[in-house]
């Protein structure tokens, strides 16, 4: 998991700006996608719902909608990638390097896979419950 993002370049224009890394671009694209998906999620799941949270029956009926299921699955995938890559970037900022960095990167990748797998299983289990 190569999630090295660029250091803080928010101060001023630099005459010789380094080329953006793939990890930086992935973080930007997933971040922009999350702005859309998270807005949809917060509005549809909470803001328009009476009391802010659905009852059990309403949750099951809502998740059964294929469009909702697909959006929530995409949100889970995107937020997990963005979050785990962000944690990796923070650790790189703190100076994590070498063998320790490789071990942490693999562990974070494993955590991301487990998170997405569990989240999808949870979504499917709820959706297909009678």
């Amino acid at each position, binding site marked *: 998991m190569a999630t090295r993002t660029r250091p*803080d370049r928010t101060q001023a224009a630099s005459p010789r700006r380094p080329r953006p890394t793939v990890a930086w671009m992935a973080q930007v694209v997933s*971040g922009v996608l999350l702005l859309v998906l998270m807005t949809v999620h917060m509005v549809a799941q909470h*803001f328009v719902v009476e009391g802010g949270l*659905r009852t059990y029956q309403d949750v099951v009926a809502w998740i059964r909608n294929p469009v909702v299921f697909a959006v929530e699955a995409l949100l889970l995938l995107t937020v997990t990638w963005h979050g785990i890559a962000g944690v990796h970037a923070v650790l790189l900022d703190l100076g994590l390097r070498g063998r320790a960095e490789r071990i942490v990167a693999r562990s974070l990748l494993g955590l991301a896979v487990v998170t997405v797998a569990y989240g999808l299983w949870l979504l499917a289990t709820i959706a297909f419950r009678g």
Partner: protein
Amino acid sequence: MTGKGLRAVGGRHPSRWLDPRGRHLGTWAFVLNRLTGLGLVAYLYLHLIVLSTLLRGPEAWDGLVAVFRRPVFLALDVLLVLGLAVHGLNGLRVALVGSGLLVDRHKALLVAAGVLVGLVGLVAAVRTFA
């Protein structure tokens, strides 16, 4: 996390964003983005744990929903929306400036992000408590 793994190696020093003393407003905003990001990653896992209550059936979930409708939890919901807005909108600013776009307008972008965060927080508070 401390120790050998976090020391700078290969002549590259760790990023110093965690020590923003004497730095510009943009760096403070960058630090805020990192910190809100870490908080939101922690919340992602808390959210998955809470959603797992759905596996225990209607009584368990509906009981939890009743607890989460108490004012203290509703206030935490507004705080969550604020955290998402800060990270999302300030992150968009960091992405634009870090990608070399609107670099000379980074302070105006910061003000715009701040105003939008305030508006989102206000709408969330009104919608939650009204």
